[in-house]
């Protein structure tokens, strides 16, 4: 009998610690499937962030390094420069990448570091319990914007892909979503391409994944997916920003 579905080898057999309905698990699985399909588990080194995914080194079978908050791109730079023949990725949330780690991501991208960043944008801080993120939408209620995010007080949501794609060293930049099966499949395609871009030595690649945080959004998992579609997708345009036709 043919096996049609199984746990990717690159993902350890271990229950995830994420909340019910959280989409981190989906993205972890997609990254692991891509590592399997490219046959690169033995040469891949991942960098874990600070945030809900801080310990995703417990889930991936490849070598892993845990980084300080926001510093994953600098840590990945150090690793990749020592091992240019390895595949190095960072996995970062919106607080990690777009607030405290803004300098590190911008400059790693601009130097064209041959690393891949998986950027989870769920418009909120998860681990510290629902504070405003740089990507929190206008009007969105969080524990630090209890009356909604007001641009005149809190500034505007940051569009990371638009910003990163202006940089010379960034060669593949794409925003995707995990709101439904079609988009999940598309996310996997984008992640795979981002890894291939790195392996071809083209430069820096980033995939922004619009994700959910049912717990801190105060919604059930199904409502959360709908909220993502209705609120995040209109503001954070899905699609490729750079490197669509890059041959790898």
């Amino acid at each position, binding site marked *: 009998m043919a096996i049609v579905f199984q746990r990717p080898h690159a993902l350890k057999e271990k229950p995830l610690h994420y909340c019910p309905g959280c989409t981190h698990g989906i993205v972890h699985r997609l990254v692991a499937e891509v590592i399997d399909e490219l046959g690169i588990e033995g040469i891949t080194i991942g960098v874990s962030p600070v945030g809900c995914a801080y310990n995703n080194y417990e889930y991936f079978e490849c*070598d892993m390094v845990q980084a300080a908050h926001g510093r994953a791109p600098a840590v990945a730079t150090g690793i990749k420069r020592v091992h240019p023949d390895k595949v190095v990725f960072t996995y970062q949330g919106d607080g990690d990448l777009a607030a405290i780690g803004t300098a590190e991501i911008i400059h790693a991208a601009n130097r064209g570091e041959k690393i891949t960043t998986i950027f989870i944008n769920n418009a909120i801080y998860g681990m510290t319990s629902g504070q405003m993120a740089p990507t929190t939408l206008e009007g969105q209620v969080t524990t630090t914007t209890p009356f909604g995010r007001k641009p005149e007080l809190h500034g505007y949501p940051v569009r990371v892909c638009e910003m990163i794609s202006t940089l010379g060293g960034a060669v593949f930049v794409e925003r995707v979503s995990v709101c439904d099966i079609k988009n999940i499949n598309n996310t996997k395609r984008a992640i795979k391409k981002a890894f291939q871009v790195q392996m071809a030595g083209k430069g820096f690649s980033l995939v922004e994944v619009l994700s959910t945080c049912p717990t801190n959004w105060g919604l059930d998992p199904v409502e959360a997916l709908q909220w993502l579609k209705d609120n995040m997708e209109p503001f954070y345009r899905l699609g490729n920003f750079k490197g669509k036709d890059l041959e790898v």
Partner: protein
Amino acid sequence: MGEKLLMKGNEVIAEAAIRAGCRYYFGYPITPQTEIMHYIAKKFPSIGGTFIQAESEVAAINMVYGAAAAGARVMTSSSSPGISLKQEGLSYIAGAELPAVIVNIVRCGPGLGGILPSQGDYFQAVKGGGHGDYKMVVLAPSSIQELYELTVEAFNIADRYRIAVMIMGDGTLGQMMETVEFRDREEIEEADKSWAVTGTRMEREHNVITSIYIDPEVLEDLNNRLQAKYRIIEQREVRVETYNCDGADIIVSAFGTVARIVKNVIRMAEKEGIRVGLIRPITLWPFPTETFRKYAEVPAAFLSVELNAGQMVEDVRLAVNGKREVYFYGRTGGMIPTQKEILDKIREIYKNSR
């Protein structure tokens, strides 16, 4: 010994690092140590080294963290305000037990302070400038020759114990020129780096470099392991110079370039019939406590001379443990104590102690 050259301190650090097998350097410009970076930027391309002028000190120390995790010999350098920015990374390096060499060519503070020599970062270096219970080995050379030898040794110590080693000099040491005699070949200790992230090749369990342990028992185990390692380092790695201490009337403690001024003062005092000894800690951590204990009852009093408002003097007092009075003389702001100032202080202590 081999080649003998007249070189600037900062350049000697860079040359020594290269000779010690360091091929990764990440840094951000700041006076008065930037010549280290200039030298490396020029030399690294021809020897296959990797130099990145990072976007910040924070990024630089995290590149060091990454390269060390990947198993490389790696160095960063900076001066006081930049070293403050690196404290986050240093704490993580300690927690993850990574070997790395950090150079601090100290300038005077606080704040942006000034660019002139200082020893005002002693507390930050030896008491753990970042969060949590941790230590770095801190080496304090006083000549260019010693700067060379200790820089090479710093890499060996870092690898031997999986620990950060700081070379702490003041602006004078970084900027002055002296002759340095290089060895033909360096003793580069082979270190086990089976813990490093190099890719599993599907041949071993994955390696994880981390400093986070949510389970309190596991985190206490890590802390206990770190402390046990620090106790071993305290036993094995203390370096100290003693000069003229037997039968001394007064023993002066000083490190780095200040110790050189004190040596001249010792000759001047001798002419006045005051026998002055010197204890010069070469490792600021581990501190040569035993040496101070050994001589604690020899002189009438101790005097610590420093380019700060009184920092190492606290460790001298702890070591002397009340057996003798421990005085302090220091200058701040980039001012250097003159021989006469120190001699006057010695005369005063000598007079009062009789």
